[in-house]
């Protein structure tokens, strides 16, 4: 590939990091400067991500047909013994990554606005939010596998500190748990990346590459078998499992999910928003882009199990949500459940062999999964912001302590109700489109898992509406007679996200038309490889 530079993605990725360094220079007493600085930087980045969208036509993008490419060779050394160490600085966006880049831009900006009340070490807090944004932007735009891994790890330290310093009572426990789970996953992922890198290089006479465009093309995919303790495992399947372990922790997939409720419950509101809104999506994005794109055979081998785990995720997450007394913990578990839809869509896409009649279904399922990443990010973000406002006013999140507070907080209750309805998949709100696509697409492929998973929708409606009824409707609990409503500043993130949910609920085509070509390419490769 030729060196080329559009620079826009590079700016989007690194501007927040520069902002973070800049914030460190702010005098200690001037907390307002830190807030405004972070707000300006994230706002500029958000506008730039929109410029990504409006600056070029987005019809027919895929990993072979990227937009806004920044490419420059970085490390290229022949280390003897037939080992090349080759890393390129390669950023680019396609229909799969663009929605996530924009979502990250939006949520980071709203997170800064939503953290305006933070008085404890404001400067550090804002700097860490900005560092986090850099890491996540990098993950979604990196197109060299090793560069991807570098960005993947950048998020770790800021997130750890954000939970450990600004979290709730059990913050340190939650932060360590988050760190250990993530490190465990990413070191296994690194082993998978090494395996892929060397196996691919060996198959192509030492033409080592970590270029994700090449790795996703059928003639660069790995094949053959590995012998582990006398039993044979397909190279693609082994690489899939190793790399997917890292993503499974992040998504989070049962049984790797237990860090999430703790991290979410203890993290401050805006951090929960980012965690659920974009960080979990890094796992889902990696699953689609890397696991499905590079190892179609491995994905095909494991698809039935993946479907089963998806159903467990959906039902288990929803079931546990039902019995939570803490609003925030309930929403945390609902994330586990909703990320199960993404897994189900992927499992369906990887499902059956080349039956031309089912290709449209698989495509729908995968499009739904990719769309769910975006919609769940916006809806959960909204839910967490709502809970944050409630907690800010009432200093508790126990559902049963409230009762009828709609009378005191009409504005907030409206937003909260819209969020719940969107989350349970009400038509005309964006959650519906994604879930509909996933379930319709996966039904003919994994019928049992889909039927089981569909019960998740019922459960979701159950726990969300039940929570609304107990906390917001019915007679007003006199204890909350003096509860103030959300302030104008607090309404900014809420209204913005409601607008996003409505926009893509009514015009899902805006996103689907971008996502679909990228998804098709992955499926086309799959059909070509699996016979």
């Amino acid at each position: 590939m030729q060196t080329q530079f559009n620079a826009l993605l590079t700016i989007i990725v690194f501007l927040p990091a520069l902002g973070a360094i800049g914030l460190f220079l702010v005098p200690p007493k001037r907390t307002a400067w830190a807030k405004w600085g972070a707000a300006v930087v994230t706002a500029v980045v958000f506008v730039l991500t929109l410029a990504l969208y409006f600056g070029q036509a987005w019809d027919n993008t895929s990993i072979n047909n990227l937009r806004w490419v920044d490419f420059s060779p970085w490390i290229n050394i022949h280390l003897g013994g037939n080992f090349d160490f080759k890393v390129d600085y390669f950023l680019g966006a396609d229909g799969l990554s663009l929605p996530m880049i924009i979502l990250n831009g939006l949520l980071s900006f709203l997170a800064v606005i939503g953290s305006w009340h933070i008085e404890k070490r404001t400067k550090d807090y804002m700097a860490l939010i900005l560092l986090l944004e850099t890491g996540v932007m990098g993950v979604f735009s990196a197109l060299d596998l090793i560069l991807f891994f570098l960005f993947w790890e950048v998020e770790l330290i800021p997130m750890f500190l954000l939970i450990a310093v600004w979290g709730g009572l059990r913050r340190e426990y939650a932060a360590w748990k988050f760190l250990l789970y993530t490190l465990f996953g990413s070191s296994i992922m690194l082993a998978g990346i090494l395996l892929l890198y060397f196996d691919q290089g060996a198959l192509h006479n030492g033409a080592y590459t970590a270029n994700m465009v090449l790795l996703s093309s059928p003639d660069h995919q790995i094949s053959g078998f590995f012998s582990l303790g006398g039993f044979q495992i397909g190279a693609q399947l082994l690489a899939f499992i190793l790399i997917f372990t890292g993503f499974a922790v992040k998504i989070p997939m049962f049984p790797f999910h237990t860090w999430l409720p703790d991290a979410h419950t203890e993290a401050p509101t805006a951090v929960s928003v980012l965690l659920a809104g974009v960080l979990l999506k890094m796992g889902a994005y990696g699953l689609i882009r890397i696991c499905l794109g590079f190892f179609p055979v491995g994905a095909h081998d494991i698809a039935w199990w993946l479907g089963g785990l998806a159903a467990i995720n959906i039902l288990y997450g929803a079931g546990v949500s039902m019995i939570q007394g803490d609003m925030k913990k309930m929403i945390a578990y609902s994330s586990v459940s909703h990320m199960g839809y993404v897994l189900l869509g992927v499992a369906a896409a990887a499902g059956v062999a080349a039956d031309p009649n089912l290709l449209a279904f698989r495509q729908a399922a995968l499009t739904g999964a990719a769309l769910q990443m975006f919609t769940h990010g916006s809806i959960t973000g909204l839910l967490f912001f709502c809970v944050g406002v409630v907690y800010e006013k009432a200093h508790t999140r126990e559902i049963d302590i409230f009762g009828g507070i709609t009378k005191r907080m009409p504005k907030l209750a409206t937003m909260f109700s819209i969020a719940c309805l969107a989350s349970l998949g009400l038509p005309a709100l964006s959650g519906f489109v994604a879930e509909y696509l996933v379930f319709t697409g996966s039904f003919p492929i994994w019928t049992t898992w889909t039927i089981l998973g569909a019960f998740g929708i019922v459960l979701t409606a159950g726990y969300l509406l039940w929570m609304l009824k107990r906390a917001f409707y019915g007679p007003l609990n006199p204890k909350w007679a003096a509860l103030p409503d959300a302030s104008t500043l607090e309404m900014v993130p809420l209204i913005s996200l409601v607008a996003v949910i409505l926009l893509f609920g009514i015009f899902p085509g805006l996103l689907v038309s971008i996502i679909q070509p990228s998804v098709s390419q992955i499926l086309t490769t799959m059909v070509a490889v699996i016979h």
Partner: protein
Amino acid sequence: MTVTGSDIWLLSPELSLALLALLVIGLDLVVKRRSVVAITALLGLAIPAGFTFALATNLPNPHQAFFNMLTVDEYSLFFKLLFLLIGAVMILVSYDYINKYVRSAGEFYALLLLSVTGMMLMASTTELISIYISLELTSIPLYIMAGLLRGDDRSAEAAVKYVLLGAMSSAILLYGFAFLYGLTGTTSLDGIATATLKSGFAGGNILLLLANVFVLAGFGFKISAVPFHNWAPDIYEGAPTPATAFYSVGSKAAGFAALFRVFVDANIALPNGTTIVMLISVIAILTMTLGNVVAIVQSNVKRMMAYSSIGQAGYILVGFAASVGSGTPGGIASAMFFLFVYVLTNLGAFAGIIALGHALGSENIRDFNGLRFRNGWLAVGTSICLLSLAGVPPMAGFFAKFVLFASAWQQGLTWLVVIGVLNSLVSMGYYGYLVYAMFVKEPHKEGHISSTRPLNLALAISSVGIIVVTILTSVLLDQANIGAQGLAAFLGH
């Protein structure tokens, strides 16, 4: 048998450095102001550095001097520049500490420079007796430095221990060298290589194997590989902190430089290849695991860093095993790159520890609590260094480890890589804990901790250097690769 101008030119970096050491110690007698002595030492380093650069940019041919006792190749030049960097940063790091705690400042700098001279020779000598002499030139100043805190029992104890154990390890090394001489009739590494290839050792030879083991053991002491590591924690704790920093980077890097040289140039591992690779792998595993696991439970930062540096030596041995096993330079090239990054990073971490110890008078892990509130930049700089040591991306330590493990993986040492990666995870436990203590925990006491200008400069060099090295990985790794390839044209003869 005459010495030619070319010989002198090739020796010029070491010669000028030795003269600088003498100048510094002489200056200390006549000049009262200590800063003058330190600045002379620091600026004086520009002269050997200039010679080394001149040699590096225009490598003379032939590049052997003094009847092939000295070889100036890309490999040795890489290490020489590294040692000069160590020397320069060490002077910055030690200035305030030495002024405060050590009565004889000039001696400290002179010893430091003499030791660096020895290290530079260790990377360059290609003959057994010269290797031994340069090893002693390196070590004897180190023994003295350990005891420089006069009136401190622990410092005296450290010095005595260091001398005794150091002498023992030298004896073991010499024993191995004697075997090599007895088997081959020559002390030149080239001659040994030719002899081992020609004289029917092909199927393995028990005496040669013993020689290998003794040489490995002798250098194993220098690089503090398990089971020759026992000296490190006590001596690291007792010695003045700057001396500890110097042991953890200088002595280790020089030990590795000579170890690689002997094993590759003399090719002594070849006849018993599989056994030796197995032996090195076992030592690597023990070293990584013991270092990292024991580091977790330490409460004194210097002891923790001692065990951490043992663990780091284990990683480097993984690269060494890869190269010895395959006869290809990839492993040693990545080990050299790793050493470079390790040196830079460890010096930075020690700069932070010294700054803290300088202000508080103690080096407990507890003292790191809430450092963020007491000196933000110090906390940030030290954290960057610690995270790089742990191998967290995007710090340079990650690429260093990545390349090292990747080349071992490529040579089929998968299990060694797996254990290495697990050890990296363990190391997050203690490096990460320090970062956690600095940024999350509440400080015991209020009040700003002030750091001094030389320490800040050293810390800035390290932490900015870590980011720069990440970006320039290609350039540095390329140099390391050229150096490793030039090592006896890598077993190609």
